[in-house]
């Protein structure tokens, strides 16, 4: 009897300490999710719900709205380049930064710093770097005899520019990979050395499997971020030229806050949520074969 009373007290105490988040969850997560689902079935200006349209918003989006198709295409284009490239760049950087050198921390600092530059500031910096006529990138390309493209002012290059610019922040992921690399037991490499394994073999059969959980985590977070790419397009190109950088969230933002179509924007948000969720689940399901978890060591 006493024990149950004690248990009740502990539970109440646990809930009391957790209460800030519980309140926050109800106000800032649970309610908005439900409300946004409801709005997605309505015509909603932000002030008044002017009509219940059922699946109308979704149907319109999928069957009629060409800008929506464009924005989805742009985002998938961005995602399918930025995520694999980002993974490779971060991994290569991490492997290099894991070399034993006296001045290695200097290199680590240099590579990491751009990661903490705010996205809005780096958007401005790269807008200037990529200026077709006076930007440093084209000036340097010209030095080696390449006539640089118009970058963000050219619809064929604008998405690629934003993909490349995103790599400037790869130092953050590289540091997480580096931490994982340093956790790989050295004994594994020593055994492989005794067997005369090449560097490539060690990378392929020891390093990559050992850090694969971190890689999986990185890929999921990168996909999640890429689905929501917004700031560079908002600042650098306003979605242009010719809507070539009109990304999903930018179009959603415009529907909600510029066109007063909050119901439609809510439907877009829900579709994005489902897309992100399905993608994550697919990645998790298919990654099972590639990801290696060490037993219950920790």
């Amino acid at each position, binding site marked *: 009897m006493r024990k149950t009373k004690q248990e009740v007290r502990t539970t109440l105490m646990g809930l009391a300490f957790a209460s800030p988040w519980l309140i926050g969850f109800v106000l800032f997560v649970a309610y908005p999710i439900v409300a946004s689902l409801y*709005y997605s079935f309505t015509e909603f200006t932000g002030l008044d719900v002017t009509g219940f349209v059922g699946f109308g918003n979704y149907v319109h989006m999928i069957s009629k709205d060409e800008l929506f198709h464009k924005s989805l295409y742009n985002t998938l284009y961005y995602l399918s380049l930025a995520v694999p490239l980002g993974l490779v760049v971060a991994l290569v*950087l991490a492997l290099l930064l894991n070399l034993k*050198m006296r001045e290695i921390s200097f290199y680590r600092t240099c590579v990491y710093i751009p990661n903490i530059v705010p996205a809005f500031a780096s958007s401005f910096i790269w807008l200037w770097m990529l200026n077709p006529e006076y930007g*440093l990138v084209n000036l340097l390309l010209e030095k080696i005899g390449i006539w640089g493209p118009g970058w963000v002012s050219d619809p064929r290059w604008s998405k690629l520019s934003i993909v490349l610019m995103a790599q*400037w922040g790869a130092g953050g992921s590289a540091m997480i990979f580096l931490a994982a690399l340093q956790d790989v037991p050295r004994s594994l490499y020593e055994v492989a050395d005794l067997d005369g394994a090449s560097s490539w073999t060690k990378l392929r059969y020891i390093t990559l499997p050992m850090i694969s959980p971190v890689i999986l985590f990185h890929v999921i977070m990168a996909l999640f971020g890429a689905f*929501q790419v917004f700031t560079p397009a908002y600042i650098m190109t306003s979605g242009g030229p010719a809507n070539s950088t009109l990304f999903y969230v930018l179009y959603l933002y415009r529907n909600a806050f510029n066109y007063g179509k909050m119901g439609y924007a809510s439907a877009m948000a829900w579709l*994005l949520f489902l897309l992100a969720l399905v993608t994550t689940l697919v990645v998790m399901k298919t990654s099972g074969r590639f990801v290696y978890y060490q037993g219950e060591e920790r």
Partner: protein
Amino acid sequence: MASRYGSKHRRYLRGQILGRIFLFAMSIVFLLPILWMFTTSIKDSSQVMAYPPIWLPRPPKWENYRIAVNAIPFVLYLRNTVTICFFTIIGTLLSSTLVAYSLAKIPWPGRNVLLLLILSTMMLPFPVTMIPLFVTFGRLGWVNTFKPLIVPSFLGNAFYIFLLRQFFMTIPGELSDAARIDGASELGIFRRVILPLSKPVLAVVALFQFLGSWNDFLGPLIYLQSNDKYTLAIGLQMYRTTNYVEWELLMAASTLVVIPILVLFFFAQRTFIEGIAITGIKG
């Protein structure tokens, strides 16, 4: 055997030299945009578009910084940004620590379910909650105030809760048990035992929250509408008119925005590294 060792050593040396060259080139590539931002910021407008490019303008036009700060209400925007940073740090530290303590140190039955729920909210894209939140804050009359940006931080942040929980788990239970035997309450244990032992992770959370608020773009973009409420993130766009950009001023202002972060990084490098290490555990 000796020759094999020799070839291995040669390979090691070759790796070191190639690695060095590559890393050095990489470091330059990564720092170049920051350097270019800085040199542009001290150029005369006639030098900004000079060909060939001028690397170090002589004399440097430091005047640009004064002009940039006066061209827009920079000081006001700085104050707005710092205000938001300050209160969100306080809010996060107060709330997320309590929740993390509940998850890590109070053995109540629902805590693992709660942890899963907290972690799963991190997979919710912001646009899903963005519109109802905007509508609700609008009804409360909070749009065009700092409240929508500050108040949520007082109700905990999933990422920081997880970070803190991971750290609290490493604090031996004996310490809190001893305090409990001495008659300390849960709140007392939290304040006098756990928090003093957690200074490094509290620093990590404060630092990340500072960066989060300093760097936030979409939040202020949505909620701050009159131009006396802007943060630096939004205000920086004012150096652009529809068809003209004053690059030297924009770059001067960008430098001013980036410098506090760089200074913070150099002073708190260890905190950054610890933060990365803790984040890495998540894998």
